[in-house]
């Protein structure tokens, strides 16, 4: 995890308090007074950089800020392995037969490849080859590719495709785990992405309309005629569990006492392509079907928090405070038993039922994923009105 390489700077007493207040049932008490499923308020804007095909910026209330820029280039599609290779093309394409057969899950005829999308994450203070950064990038990319819709939209014809570069920049220092921020910003940037209008036909070399006003959205807005399905890019939510509580969008302090942290990527179930003559009606939250794309567990920083020392074992209090008898003198070196109100880093994993509960809560109808998608749709619509 990108942020937990550094030490957690919270004292054992604070950790014990946080743990106790967050594991209260039925409703945990969070340090910022949010409910367990509430997101922090955020400011979002799209289409901020005219030099990119699509861009977005999101600021969380805690001051963390991210910018995502999307650039596309035309690239020649490599022939799929095992496909017939033209004799004249065979020379230059030699050695390409090992290309990953990615994206093969859908339509084998159409030669999609996961190599069409490239994503780079930049976190200040971390090298770009840092394992935590690589993990973050792979997590966002995994959801985009598993969705399968993005790659399909990048196809131009059987010989050419768009190569998409996503540059994800975290501008502020990583305060909490930046995954939700980066994922939401990527979602908005993809929604604002426009591609030049294709005016050539069939498999000939692609020609584009040079009028930017004629460009088309990669994800056409709702209510517009389109031959593509009305899917939206996926989003990744961060879910953590403490005791029996399940919390969404955890802050740095909350993560420091987490039992388990999961990143859950979801997207909307795409509807069938709408025939050209009918207009797709905007979807209501009620009939939105969600799709589970990927889940990853994230190493909670709680495992490397400093443990508290119970009074019974503390040499400073001589083990005799508040009528507590010094139990075992030798116990200092042996295992410290779990004591109420004394912080101890969690050990082991979490049970299957807790993990399932976390996933189900994210996918719930009218739950957090729905709410976030609605919020993002609001941003999308606001930017349309401005246009």
């Amino acid at each position, binding site marked *: 995890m990108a942020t937990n390489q550094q*030490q957690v700077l919270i004292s054992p007493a604070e950790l014990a308090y946080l743990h106790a207040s967050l594991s209260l049932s039925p409703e945990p008490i969070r340090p910022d007074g949010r409910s367990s499923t509430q997101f922090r308020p955020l400011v979002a804007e799209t289409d901020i950089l005219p030099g990119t095909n699509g861009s977005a910026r999101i600021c969380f209330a805690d001051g963390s800020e991210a910018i995502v820029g999307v650039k596309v280039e035309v690239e020649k599609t490599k022939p799929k392995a095992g496909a017939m290779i033209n004799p004249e093309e065979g020379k230059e394409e030699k050695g390409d037969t090992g290309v990953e057969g990615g994206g*093969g899950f859908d339509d084998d005829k159409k030669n999609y490849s996961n190599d069409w999308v490239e994503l780079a994450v930049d976190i200040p203070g971390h090298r770009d*080859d840092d394992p935590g950064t*690589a993990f973050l990038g792979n997590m966002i990319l995994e959801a985009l590719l598993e969705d399968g819709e993005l790659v399909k939209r990048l196809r131009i014809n059987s010989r050419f495709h768009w190569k998409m570069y996503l540059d994800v920049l975290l501008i502020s220092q990583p305060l909490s785990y930046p995954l939700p921020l980066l994922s939401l910003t990527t979602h908005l940037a993809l929604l604002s992405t426009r591609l030049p209008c294709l005016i050539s036909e069939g498999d000939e070399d692609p020609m584009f309309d040079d009028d930017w006003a004629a460009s088309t959205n990669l994800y056409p807005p709702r209510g517009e005629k389109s031959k593509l399905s009305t899917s939206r890019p996926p989003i990744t939510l961060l879910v953590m569990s403490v005791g029996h509580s399940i919390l969404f969008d955890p802050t740095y302090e909350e993560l420091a006492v987490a039992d388990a942290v999961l990143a859950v990527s979801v997207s909307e179930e795409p509807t069938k392509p709408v025939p050209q003559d009918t207009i797709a009606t905007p979807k209501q939250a009620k009939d939105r079907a*969600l799709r589970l794309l*990927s889940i990853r567990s994230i190493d909670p920083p709680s495992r490397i928090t400093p443990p508290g020392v119970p009074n019974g074992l503390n040499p400073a209090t001589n083990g005799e405070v508040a009528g507590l008898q010094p139990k075992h003198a030798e116990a200092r070196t042996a295992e410290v038993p779990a004591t109420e109100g004394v912080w101890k880093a969690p050990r*082991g*994993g979490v*049970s*299957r039922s807790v993990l399932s509960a976390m996933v189900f809560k994210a996918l719930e109808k009218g739950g957090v994923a729905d709410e976030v998608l609605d919020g993002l749709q609001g941003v999308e619509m606001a930017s349309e009105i401005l246009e």
Partner: protein
Amino acid sequence: MADRRRINGPVGVTSPPVYANHTPGKAQKDTVQQRPDNTLRQIFLKTGITPSASGSAYLEVTGPSTNGPSGLKLNCTVHGPRSLAKSTPFTPYTTLTTHVKYAPFATRQRRGYLRDSSEKDLGVHLETALRGVIIADRWPKSGVDIIVTVLEGDQPREVFKGTPDEGIDAMNVLSGCITVASAAIADAGIDCVDMVAGGVAALVASEEDKGEPRFVLDPAPSEHDKILAGCCVAYLPSRDEITNLWYKGQTSGNDTLLYTQLVEKAVQASRGANKVLVDTLKEGVTEAGKQSKGSMEVDR
């Protein structure tokens, strides 16, 4: 980053020759699943193979067909716990570092000597799986390095039409890494809360797209045309807990049963691997000094 320290081979790949009488398409796919869906492939596990390391283990999973060599071969060494450098700040815990590296020849596409992003990704997964298992507060101010080398990466040698995406072989590799690292940690004598083992399960579309998709334990990438979803867990059997969960696939959010079943199957696979792990370690204890082969078939 370009690797300037070593003499690198030519970029790109060299594929083994494909002969003309190979008819493209279905006929090429000669590996058909021979074992039942709910069994694992054969696992070979041996500890203590690198004398210079604190602990080490070697794991092999057979390929789908007896003559095809495309299985999984992993080597793991554990160094430590040892004291950290003086300049590092105080930690009350063992600092765990994990490295997963593919050998250049482990996959179809040649790998470079420097770790690429997918290898680092696997390293982070492995760290997540192991950090919960090791009782880290018993060694303050110390570090443990876990290095896994993937000698063979469970990829079919030939690419044919319906090869599923590379996700599932990465999951198989991760699951192997978890099991082999667990054995090596035990060999090094590092205290753990339980023996962790990895398990993979997948939801596979049935042949010719007829009938219901089915669940397969320990799926071999070359045996299946289309993998709908995959799941890899690191599971602690005696505590009934999961330290690492990695799920990938396209399943409907309303159909949560599918997810639950898939995790259940992955846990089942992990239990199987755990049996091999425990037997190997027991053997290592009883026949101390004399290392015997701990190969056995697991059927469930």
